């Protein structure tokens, strides 16, 4: 494969250029990074055209996001790209933690078998983007506009009038919906005058990618206080093409210009990996990080996703993964709204569900940061105490926090969730709001069988209700929100969904999160739950429940 980073994206004058009267388009996505591209692909899979605008002309030189979590891979499977990402990337699920010169312990992120995707695949962001761009071109529905930049936004009666700067000059168009996926330094955010809320950390980190051939397992190695970076931390990760990610904590006072000189970085690399290590640099960068987010992700018909909406420390691989999950959450809701199957207020649930996810991710990454870079003497005393005890005491290992790695957020407080008539505490991993757990089924994998729309699944080892099911099937196929019905009797799948002994009935949303579950088959209840999950019952609930629920907590700020 040619080096994808050498591919350049030409500017092409679009049909909108030079129009006297700006034309209206349903969806404009600003930013052709992983989040914008995944959203465009998901919308295309549902039949929608979109315009994606990006000012760049090449993929990023550096690897940037590298750890793609199981949930992200499952979303990419839904979009047909899971396999290409997983096979190009490096699969890993073991992490090792070191303290000074001693190996403290190792962990296995996916101890359970019978999952299609591993806990993580490491792959440079430029590959992720490259595969998405190739796929986007193949859809015929995604209009990628490179070397164009949004320079003005003005609300109109049905969306936003956008002014776009190109190498040829400016043009304008109207977008019914604008999705700002334009990254940490989002120009859309700035143009709307929106501020981030949260913490900024002083510590600086040096990040570099090196290319080397080394017989070393594909594992995440994390050092606290190693001899080669005394008093600080370091991280080593393998990526595709024999590229390795190295990350060194440098402290607040580090001199950026000095530290990023290749000779100085090379000294650090050799101290970490051995004096005779043969390697070449692919990328060197320094970063500080923030833990903060927008107060709201939806601003009328402008929606924020990914780093444009929230920024967090990289420990836990939650930046890129949560951005892809933003897109996963948004695409089906936009689809229903654009097809007038759901009210616009369904998009408020994007705001509240993904704000809850951002807060979970911010909480986890902030806690990791406080452990990795303790502030003050007492924080350090506890941190060093945990590490010292962890050498011999299992109890302390659970407290060692080198990053709590990204898992899918459960939308526990979502107003879209329907009933759960399981006994309290029964099978919590598949409760309403949770992302569907994959499992092998006769035809392959459960998540593939779920597909793209609303799906009702009867999990049953033996089912004797074929007539009821057939009736439910007919009824639900014709409802306002069509629901496909599946029967799954495979053992592992039934176990994962709490149906080893008694049948269980689930409604899954198009993003493959559980909307509701029952012990009895009730087509009318399924239908109501599908309406609720598509936002058709939102208004009622607000009036009924007043200040409760996550919509109201999201709107407090």
């Amino acid at each position, binding site marked *: 494969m040619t080096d994808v980073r050498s591919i350049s994206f030409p500017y092409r004058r679009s049909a909108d250029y030079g129009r006297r009267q700006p034309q209206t388009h349903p969806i404009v996505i600003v930013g052709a990074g992983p989040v914008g591209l995944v959203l465009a692909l998901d919308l295309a899979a549902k039949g929608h055209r979109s315009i994606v605008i990006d000012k760049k002309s090449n993929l990023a030189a550096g690897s940037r996001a590298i750890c793609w979590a199981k949930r992200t891979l499952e979303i990419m499977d839904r979009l047909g790209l899971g396999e290409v990402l997983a096979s190009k990337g490096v699969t890993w699920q073991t992490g090792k933690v070191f303290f000074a010169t001693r190996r403290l312990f190792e962990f296995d992120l996916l101890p359970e078998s019978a999952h299609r995707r591993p806990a993580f695949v490491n792959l440079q962001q430029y590959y992720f983007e490259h595969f998405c761009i190739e796929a986007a071109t193949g859809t015929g529905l995604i209009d990628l506009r490179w070397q164009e930049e949004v320079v003005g936004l003005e609300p109109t009666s049905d969306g936003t009038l956008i002014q776009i700067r190109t190498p040829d000059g400016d043009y304008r168009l109207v977008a019914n919906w604008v999705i700002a996926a334009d990254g940490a330094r989002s120009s859309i955010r700035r143009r709307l005058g929106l501020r981030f809320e949260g913490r900024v950390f002083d510590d600086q980190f040096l990040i570099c990618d090196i290319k080397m051939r080394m017989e070393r397992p594909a594992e995440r190695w994390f050092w606290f206080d190693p001899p080669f970076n005394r008093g600080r931390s370091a991280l080593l990760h393998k990526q595709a093409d024999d590229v390795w990610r190295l990350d060194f904590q440098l402290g607040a006072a580090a001199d950026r210009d000095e530290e990023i000189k290749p000779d100085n970085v090379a000294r650090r690399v050799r101290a970490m990996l051995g004096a005779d290590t043969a390697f070449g640099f692919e990328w060197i960068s320094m970063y500080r990080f923030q833990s903060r987010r927008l107060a709201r992700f939806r601003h009328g018909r402008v929606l924020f996703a990914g780093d444009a909406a929230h920024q967090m420390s990289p420990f836990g691989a939650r930046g890129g993964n949560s951005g892809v999950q933003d897109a996963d959450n948004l695409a089906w809701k936009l689809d229903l709204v654009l097809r007038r199957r759901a009210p616009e207020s369904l998009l408020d649930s994007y705001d509240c569900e993904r704000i809850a996810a951002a807060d979970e991710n911010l909480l986890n990454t902030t806690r990791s940061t406080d452990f990795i870079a303790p502030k003050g003497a007492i924080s350090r*005393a506890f941190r060093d105490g945990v590490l010292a005890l962890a050498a011999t*005491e299992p*109890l302390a290992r659970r407290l060692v926090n080198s990053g709590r790695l990204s898992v899918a957020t459960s939308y526990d407080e979502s107003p879209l969730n329907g009933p759960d008539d399981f006994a309290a505490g029964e099978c919590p991993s598949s409760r309403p709001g949770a992302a569907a757990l994959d499992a092998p089924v006769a035809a392959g994998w459960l998540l593939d069988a779920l597909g793209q729309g609303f799906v009702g699944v009867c999990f049953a080892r033996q089912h004797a209700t074929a007539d009821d099911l057939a009736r439910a099937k007919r009824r639900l196929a014709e409802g306002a929100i069509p629901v496909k019905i599946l029967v799954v009797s495979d053992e592992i799948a039934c176990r994962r969904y709490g149906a080893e002994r008694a049948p269980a009935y689930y409604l899954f949303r198009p993003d493959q999160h559980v909307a509701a579950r029952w012990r009895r088959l009730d087509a009318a209840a399924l239908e109501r739950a599908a309406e609720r999950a598509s936002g058709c019952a939102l208004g009622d609930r607000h009036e009924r429940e007043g200040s409760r629920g996550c919509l109201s907590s999201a709107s407090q700020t």
Partner: protein
Amino acid sequence: MPLKREPNLKDPDGLYAAILDAHADLSERESMALNARLVLLLANHIGEEAIVREALALARQSIDEPANN
């Protein structure tokens, strides 16, 4: 079960002395390290997080609002 606030030790003076003995010859920094590790070990042993949180609040309150006498 709430945090026990009535005496619960058979040999309170002996245990108090043992706590001080554990800190013998330690610098303030080392004593802080010892206390931190002790908290972690005992918190795990207690296991019930509500009790540990209650103890934390009580300890903190005794610093923020010392009893007047």
